[in-house]
């Protein structure tokens, strides 16, 4: 079993999710890019934790965000999907670690983190915008919006991750 550092997970929850709530749909760039950096909390759930358990966590995190944006179910569904595929994607993008590890700068480096996180963030945002929009109409503008928002979220997630990473891990 992975030794989950619960204190670290709690700090990540506080920083990513609780700071997101007042900034939800308010941190907007050029009326196009939204930052949903609460996703960082879910992306940094250690590799190898029981998938059912992390899906339940993702469901309730998504629901918490939904309550504040009056969109019940939308964020939750995207979050559950991300957590369901994240370990498969970790193996595909970074490689099979053959052991449970914490996902962070120390284990996979900055480039590994980008490779791992960006496609997942993009899928999350794209699903979110499609459901919000109620279908595949305007798919071009939705794609642009998802890519821009994805980049924005990625930058915020990685910056916050760097700020709260334990000192010994900064290189």
């Amino acid at each position, binding site marked *: 079993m992975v030794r989950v550092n619960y204190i670290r997970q709690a700090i990540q929850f506080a920083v990513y999710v609780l700071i997101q*709530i*007042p900034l939800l*749909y308010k941190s*907007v760039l050029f*009326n196009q890019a*939204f930052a949903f950096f609460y996703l960082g909390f879910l992306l940094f759930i250690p590799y190898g934790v029981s*998938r*059912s358990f992390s*899906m*339940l966590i993702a*469901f309730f995190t*998504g*629901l918490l965000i*939904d*309550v*504040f*944006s*009056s*969109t*019940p*179910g*939308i964020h*939750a*569904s995207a979050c*559950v*999907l991300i957590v*369901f595929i994240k370990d498969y994607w970790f193996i595909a993008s970074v490689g099979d670690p053959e052991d449970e590890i914490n996902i962070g700068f120390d284990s996979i480096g900055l480039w590994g983190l980008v490779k791992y996180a960006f496609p997942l963030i993009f899928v999350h945002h794209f699903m979110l*915008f499609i*459901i*919000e*929009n*109620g279908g595949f109409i*305007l798919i071009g503008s939705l794609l642009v919006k998802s890519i821009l928002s994805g980049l924005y979220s990625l930058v915020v997630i990685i910056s916050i991750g760097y700020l709260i990473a334990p000192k010994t891990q900064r290189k």
Partner: protein
Amino acid sequence: MQNLIDFLYRFRTFGLFIVLEVICAWLIVGYNQYYNASFLNSSNALAGKITQLSTNTSRFIDLKKVNQALMEENSLLRAQLANTNLQKVKIDSFENRYEVLEAAVLNHTFLKPANYITLDAGESDGLMPGMGVISDHGIVGQIKSVSKNFATVTSLLHPKSLVSITVKQSNTLGTVQWGFNSYLEADLKYIPRHTKLNVGDTIVTSGYNAVFPPNILVGIVNQVSLDIQNPFYDAQIDLSTDFSSLGFVYIIDNTAKAEIDSLTEVSDF
């Protein structure tokens, strides 16, 4: 039987995934009903409190802007008061049909495909689902659900918001519906082609439903086209309300709403 149990056990993670996604789908579909008493929205008591806390902080920083807006409105009201004093003769019963309540905006979105607004007043202040909401510049939306101290408003920037309007210049009835493009514009629908519609015409509420009183500003026509085979104009309006900066709003309580609605129901048979 054993095989079935083995099968279910092997796919338990995928099963949970499906179950959670189905719950989400159910929540999404359920919320699309126009009125509901779901606790899963921003008028829920705890969420309201937290939003209020964060809004109080940001409002302190915006205080100067809020003051400015209030001053402008004050002068507007003074002007109106002066006007009313000039025309003393009025039909009283009509004017007194509407009561106005006020509330501050705690949270609002305007860039999503379906937007909602959270207010700091609720059931205890006399708010009910279905009441109309206006700002000092024009209409804002309609109340979707209320809790004891908070309310969620379906903004005009929502695909299901339809407002019955008249064109002031020609007295033609029509409908305004938001069309996703931008929070500054909305579509003007069902204006028949035999009437005149020009860029610059004023669009106001018709007062033909029980939600908004007549003659509340909605917007100004900014684009008109008339297709040769289309029975209606294809037009867009500039919304008069600035949805990017909502501070205070007014809720219209139509004291005769129950009476009007019951009459409409009777005549529908």
